[in-house]
C-alpha cells in the first residue's frame, strides 16, 4: 500500500515540474487537472484499511472540483476570452525548472525539520505539500497572465490540501472547512476577477493592473 502512496506522491511532484516547464496554457491546465485527480486518490489509498463514508465523500468531492470543474472552467475562460495560448513568463522555463528543483530540495530539508503528528508513515507527504505550496507561489509571482495566477492559486491550494491530509484523521472538520474555503476563493473571487479584468481591459495580463493604482 505504501508503495502506491509513494508512487502517487512522486507523480504529484512530477506534475508540479510539468506546470513549471510548460509553455502552453492548455498544457498547464491539464497538468493541474491531473494533479487534482492524483490528490483526490491519495487519501483513499492512504487509508485503504480504514475507509469511511465521510472520507470517500471528501475524496470524491475534491476530485470532482479539482480535476473536472476547475480545469473545465479555466479552459472555457481561455476559449471565451480568446487569450493567447502562450504562458508569457517573467522567469524563463529552464530557470523555472531549476528553481523548482531548488524548491524540492528546500521543501525536503524543511519537511524533515517540521514535526507533524500522524505523518510518520507518510514521510514524503509533508515535503511534497511544501513543494506544491512553493510552486504555487512561484507561479503567481513569476507568470504574467491572470489565468496563470489562478492556476498558481489552485496549485497552492493543492499543497495546503496535501498538508491537511496529514491531519485528516484527527481534524476532519478542519480539512472540510479548508475545502469549502478553496471553493469560495477559487471559483468566486478569481472567476469574478478574471471576468472583470477581461471585460475592462480586453486582456488578462495581471501585471498591467498597475494602471489601476492611484
Amino acid at each position, binding site marked *: 500500500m505504501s508503495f502506491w502512496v509513494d508512487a502517487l506522491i512522486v507523480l504529484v511532484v512530477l506534475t508540479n515540474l510539468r506546470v513549471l516547464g510548460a509553455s502552453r496554457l492548455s498544457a498547464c491546465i491539464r497538468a493541474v487537472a491531473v494533479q487534482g485527480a492524483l490528490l483526490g486518490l491519495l487519501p483513499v489509498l492512504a487509508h485503504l484499511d480504514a475507509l469511511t463514508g465521510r472520507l470517500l465523500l471528501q475524496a470524491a468531492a475534491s476530485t470532482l472540483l479539482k480535476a473536472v470543474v476547475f480545469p473545465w472552467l479555466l479552459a472555457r475562460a481561455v476559449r471565451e476570452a480568446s487569450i493567447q495560448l502562450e504562458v508569457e513568463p*517573467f522567469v524563463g522555463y529552464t530557470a523555472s525548472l531549476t528553481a523548482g528543483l531548488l524548491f524540492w530540495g528546500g521543501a525536503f530539508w*524543511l519537511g524533515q*525539520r*517540521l514535526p507533524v503528528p500522524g505523518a510518520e508513515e507518510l514521510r514524503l507527504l509533508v515535503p511534497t505539500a511544501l513543494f506544491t505550496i*512553493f510552486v504555487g*507561489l*512561484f507561479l*503567481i*509571482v*513569476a*507568470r*504574467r497572465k491572470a489565468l496563470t*495566477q489562478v492556476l498558481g492559486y489552485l496549485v497552492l491550494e493543492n499543497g495546503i490540501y496535501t498538508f491537511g491530509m496529514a491531519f485528516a484523521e484527527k*481534524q476532519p*472538520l*478542519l480539512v472540510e472547512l479548508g475545502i469549502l474555503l478553496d471553493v469560495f476563493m477559487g471559483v468566486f473571487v478569481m472567476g469574478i476577477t478574471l471576468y472583470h479584468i477581461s471585460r475592462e481591459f480586453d486582456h488578462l495580463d*495581471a*501585471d498591467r*493592473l*498597475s*494602471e*489601476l*493604482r492611484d
Partner: protein
Amino acid sequence: MALLLLALLLILLGGTLALLLGRDEKLASWAGAGGAVLGALVGLVPALETLAGGPGTTLRLPWSLPLGGFVIGLDPLSAFFLVVILGLCALAAVYGTGYLRGHGRAGSAWFFFDALMASMALAVVARDAVLFLIAWELMTLSSYFLVVRDDEDESARQAGWTYLIAAHLGTAALLLFFGLLSRQAGSTSFDAFGPLDARLSGLAFLLSLAGFGVKAGFIPLHVWLPEAHPAAPSHVSAVMSGVMIKTGIYGLLRAWIFLGPPPAWWGWTLLGVGAVSGILGVLFALAQHDLKRLLAYHSVENIGIIALGLGVGLLGSAHGLPLVALLGFGGALLHVLNHALFKGLLFLGAGAVLNAAGTRDMEHLGGLLKRMPWTGACFLIASAAICGLPPLNGFVSEFLIFLGAFLAASHGAPWGPVAIGALALIGGLALACFTKAFGVVFLGEPRGERAAKAQEAPWSMRAPMVVLAGLCVLVGLGGALALDWVSPALSQVSGLRLEDFLPALEEALGPLQLITISACFFFLALAGLIALRSSLLAGRERGESGTWDCGYAAPSARMQYTASSFAQPLTELFAPFLCARERSAGPEGLFPERATFATETPDAFRERLYRPAFEGALKAAWKLRWLQHGRIQLYVLYIALTLMALLLWRLG
C-alpha cells in the same frame, strides 16, 4: 444553568425572527421585543437565585474550535451584572417598540439589539477567555451596527468609525492581557487563571485597565462615547450607556479576582483615573448643548465615580482597612446598578423629547414639562438621582463611597481627602449641569416651533420610564436593603466575609437612614405645602402668563436664558480645560439689524491628543507609499518571502 441557556436562545431567536419578518414593522418589533423580554424574564430566575445565595454553577458544552471551550457559569458577580443587563435591556426593548415606530428598517434594528443583549449576557457569564473575547467582539459589532443605523448621516458614520477603532484598540490590549494569564496557566479557562509574579501582574493590571477602560469610558479613553451614544437610537443609547459600558467594570473586577491581592498603586491609579474622569466628564457635559451628548459625558462622569469607589476599595484592601474596602466596593457596585437605572431613564426621556420635538439641540427646546408631564416628571426624578440627592438611589451609592473615604481619612490615609474632594466637586458640578439640562428642556417657554407642538410619548414608551423612576425611588428608600442584596457579589469582589463586619457596617450606615428619612419628611412637608396652596387658591381667580416673563412688554421665547448662557459662568471658570470655540458677530451701528453668537465644545482629548496622533500615523504611513505599486506578482512575492523567512526562522 439550563434556564440561562434557554434565555440566551430566546433572545437570539427573537432577533432572528425579527430579521426575517423585517418587512412587516409591527411583527418585527413584536418578535424582537418579545424575545428580549421573554429571554430576560427566563434569565432573571437563575441570576436572582444565585444572588440570593444559591450555589454557583458552571456548564461546559462541546465546542469544535481548536482553542478555548464553551464554558459558562454563574457566581454572585456574574449574576449581579446579569440582573442589571437583562432588566434594563427588557425595559429598553419595550420602549423601543414605541420609539422605532415609523423609522423603517425595524428588522435589522431589532436583530442587532437582541444580539447586543445576548452578547452582553454571554460576556458576563463566560468562563473561558476565548468565549469571553468572542462575546466581547459580538457586543462591539452589534452595537456598532446600531450606532451607524442612520448611515446616510455623515456624523453617524464618523461616530461609528471612532467607536470601532477605539473598541478594537481596547480588544488588542485584552488579547495581550488574556495571553499573559493563559501563558502562565497553560489553559484559557478562567478556573485555571491565577496570580502572576509582581512585575507581570502590574503589566496585566495596566493592560486590563486599558482594555476594559476603553469600553467603560475612562478619560482619556472615552473619545468614542460622546460620539456613539448620541448617534444610536435612544433605547440603544440607554442600553449602551446604562449597561454596556458597565461590562468594562465587570471585566476589571473579574481581572482583579484573577490577579489576587492588589498592591496600593493599583488603588492610586484607579483613584486618579476616577477623579479625572469624573471631574472632566461633568465639565465637558456642562459645555454641551446637545442633550444626548450631555448625557453621554455624564456617563463618563459616573464611570469616574465608580472608579473612585473601586479605588477606595482597592486602597482599603491594600492598607488593611476592611470596612473601607467594603464601603468603597459596595458603593461602586451599587452605583453600577443605580447608574443603569437613572442613566437608562435619562436616555429614554431624551429619546421621548427627541421623538416629540425632533431635535436634540437644547437651544430649540423648552417648556416641555407642560406638554409632556410624564416624561418631564420621570426626567426630573432621574436628574435628581444622578446628582446624588436624597432620598434617591444615586445618593445611596455616592454616600457609601463618601463614607469609605471619610473613614479612611479618619485613619490618617492621605487618599481619603482626595476622594472626598473629587466626589464633592463632581456632585456640585453635576447639580449645576442637570439644573441646566432640566431647566432649559422642560421649563420656560418653547424655543422652537416643533417643541411648541410636542406631544406626550405613547404608553409603550412611558411605561418603562415610570418603572425605572419607581426603581430609582425604591432603591433610594431601601438603601441598606439594596446593599444587602448585592452583598454576595461584594464579598466575592472584596474577598471579605460580610458577616464579620455587619455591626460595624450597620453603625456606619446609620446616617444614611437618617438622611433618607429626613429627606422623606422634607418631601412630605413640600407635598403638604402644595396641598395647602391649592386649597387656598381654590375658588379664587387666577391669572396665567408665560414662564420667566420678567415684566417685559413684549417678551419672546428667545429672551430666555439659553443652555450656553446658563452654563457660561462655570465654563468660563474652567475654560483652560474645555477648548471651546466661539463665533460671534456683535451688533453694529445705532440700529443694529443682526448679530450672531455660537459656541461649540469639541472633545479636548480628541482635538489635542488623538487628532495629532492619528494624523502623525497617517503621515508616517504615506512614507511607505512606494511599497504600494499595484503589481500583484510582487505583493505575492512579499507574502511568499515573509512565509519563507518565518519557516526558516522557526525550523532552521
